């Protein structure tokens, strides 16, 4: 048993850290400092810099344009990106759709779709959930029928509605679950389609949510014509792709690196802000105890994440650990937002006017929009398979109940 990193891993960490220090644009930091909602261009600025270095598809093997890093190196990379408070990279392509295409796609699909992902030239969104299909995802109703187009080629004609589609307003492409056989049993009649978001018949409408930022959308599809070669895997094998993808999604969802950074911000805030009794929050025994509880839970989460990493590195299936990481990861992140809001007090309650590009902070910067972020964080235990769904998975798979 060993908790230390090797000299090579430490050197790797220094290389990442130095790169971020040198290359992360100060202009981007300034643009987001007041809690402004990131623009498409904000995201892409940093994604292009990483892509140029060959690090955007950090989890990918070399043959597909990734750096070919070990799982430990990937974890170090994530830790450093988050620790430096860099803007998130849009992950629907790299972390979700890309792996599905690599696993199930044809040579043509790989050649066409993977390089733009690696080069920050395509932005992807996920068309899974529907108004009637949330936790019960397999009950989707968006219909895709085979038709012959005016050009004599075969198409799917897609009709239906997707919802909760994250950052669809920025997306060039979407990967969709659609029903290709309405008579087959639920999971059986689903296919996995790649759809150009500029196709005629697609409408993206924003959904207003807790926290204020425009994150999710409704996506309406009306007679959208999708070339048959945009289907990944066989017809009616979409559920296989979805299951594979959801496993990938779950592993990233523990979000250890980001929560570690947020706890650091929380600690800085608690050192700065005075409570009603006039002492800094960090000196209040009851508040300290809450932070200690959070930190201890986070230490356990990181160790569990590390065990899952070790299993995966050794070719063992981490199995129910993934559902556990999703559940605890989201709960611990939510505690962090809750405590940050508590530490920020009234300073965290200021919210920007729509499209205003952030707020003028009235207190510590680490407390900016703490209330908005707390409200927004309620989503964490809902998306990616709600925590109740995860508990059911654990009961079924790990305990055979």
């Amino acid at each position, binding site marked *: 048993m060993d908790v230390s990193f090797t000299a090579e891993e430490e050197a790797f960490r220094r290389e990442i850290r130095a790169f971020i220090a040198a290359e992360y644009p100060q202009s981007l930091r300034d643009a987001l400092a007041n809690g402004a909602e990131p623009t498409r261009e904000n995201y892409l600025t940093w994604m292009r810099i990483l892509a140029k270095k060959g690090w955007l598809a950090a989890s990918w093997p070399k043959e597909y344009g990734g750096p070919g890093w070990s799982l*430990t190196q990937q974890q170090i990379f994530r830790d450093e990106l988050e620790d430096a408070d860099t803007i998130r990279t849009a992950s629907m392509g790299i972390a979700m759709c890309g792996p599905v295409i690599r696993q199930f796609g044809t040579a043509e699909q790989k050649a066409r779709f993977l390089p733009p992902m690696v080069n920050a030239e395509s932005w992807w969104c996920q068309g899974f959930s529907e108004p009637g299909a949330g936790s019960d995802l397999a009950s989707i109703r968006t219909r895709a029928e085979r038709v012959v187009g005016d050009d004599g080629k075969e198409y799917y004609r897609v009709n239906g509605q997707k919802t909760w589609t994250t950052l669809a307003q920025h997306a060039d492409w979407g990967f969709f679950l659609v029903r290709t056989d309405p008579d087959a049993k639920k999971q059986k009649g689903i296919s996995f389609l790649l759809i150009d978001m500029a196709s005629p018949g697609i409408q993206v409408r924003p959904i207003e949510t807790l926290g204020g930022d425009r994150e999710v959308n409704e996506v309406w599809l009306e007679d959208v014509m999708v070339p048959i070669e945009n289907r990944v895997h066989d017809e009616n094998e979409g559920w296989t792709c979805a299951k594979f993808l959801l496993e990938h999604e779950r592993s990233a969802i523990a979000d250890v690196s980001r929560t570690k950074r947020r706890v650091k911000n929380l600690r800085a805030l608690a050192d700065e802000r005075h409570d009603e009794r006039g002492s800094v929050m960090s000196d209040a025994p009851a508040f300290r105890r809450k932070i200690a509880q959070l930190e201890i839970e986070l230490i356990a989460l990181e160790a569990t994440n590390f065990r899952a990493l070790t299993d995966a590195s050794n070719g063992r299936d981490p199995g129910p650990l993934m559902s556990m990481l999703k559940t605890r990861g989201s709960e611990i992140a939510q505690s962090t937002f809750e405590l940050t809001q508590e530490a920020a007090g009234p300073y965290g309650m200021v919210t920007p006017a729509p499209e205003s590009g952030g707020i003028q902070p009235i207190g510590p910067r680490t407390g900016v929009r703490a209330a908005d972020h707390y409200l927004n964080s309620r989503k964490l235990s809902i998306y990616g398979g709600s925590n109740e769904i995860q508990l059911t998975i654990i009961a079924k798979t790990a305990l055979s109940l």
Partner: protein
Amino acid sequence: MNFNLSDEQQMLRDMLESFLRDRFPFEARRAQVRSTATESAIWSAFANELQILGTSLPENVGGLGGGPTENMIVMEELGKALSIEPWLSTIIMAGALLRDAGAKAQETMAAVVDGTAIVVPAFDYFPGSFGKDDAGVSIAANDGGFRLSGKIPVVRDAARATHFVVLAKDAGGGQALVIVAADAPGLELKTYQLVDGVGCADLSLNGVEVEESAIVARGEEAADRMAEAFNAGVVGLCAEALGIQRMLLQWTVEYAKQRQQFGRPIGEFQVLQHRMARMLIKVEETVSMTYLATAHLENRTSERAKIASAAKVMIDQAGLFVGQQAVQIHGGMGMSKELPIADYLSRLNVIAQQLGSTDFHFGRYEASSFEKKAALPVTA
């Protein structure tokens, strides 16, 4: 970084698990707890048949040179069987107090390895706990040797001890660790049993005479040894709690699959499925913290005390949840002494108070997290 066990460590686990399953069924435990015998067939077998008493001890006392990982493996298996053998006191804690501490210490630990001595640190709960304000032992020079006087409450495994390691203070407040034979004139034991079945005693030392060679450490060195022993003991308790939690979860799931109410197994009810999934999450978090804290001890990192306390907090909380839910899901049968569930919860309940309460370890963690420069308290 890795949490992998070596082949030898895996073999140790397998060997001990099958030995305890065959030779220490729960009825044997019940009988051992009821008996007043100070001999234990299991400990003798550890010494003679399995020859594992030296697994984690240094070669200079006849050990195999293993360390925290071996102790973790043994403690987890002892926890699964709810064994009351004094591995934590004798091998882990006395082992840490006496490691490379001179001829007398070496000779005493060598006797531990061959099974002829059981050394018990004469502290577990700390002086001042349970409101026993008169606790504490003083040491004074006397006629070429030294005399010890004072009281130490709630010393675990005391009835089985052949030797104690006593922490004493001289008139100037300096600390000393002293080996005292259990049959030394002037040493009195008032013995009793705790709810987990382990024999404890309040020790009174009334002018117990020892030679200079019995003093194994003084001053800062004594404090350092106490801290090492304490951290190692805390992590050992975590591993024991892990074994206990594993059994409680396993039995609870088995019971829920077989117990019928409303015409079906109660394990089909989602409210209980989710409860048991939560139990599994707690058990897995206990695994993670036990491994992490063990690896920190193994690497002797500067954070080992902080991580040991973090682990104790987390595992105390997890243990109570898992134990309480095991009883709850077993219903009345969980209360009944017909099943081992009640006994396993009793032990977890004691662990949450042993070697520092959950609150104490919260405080110790906070001292290290919020006041980087402050030394970590070993005692409250």
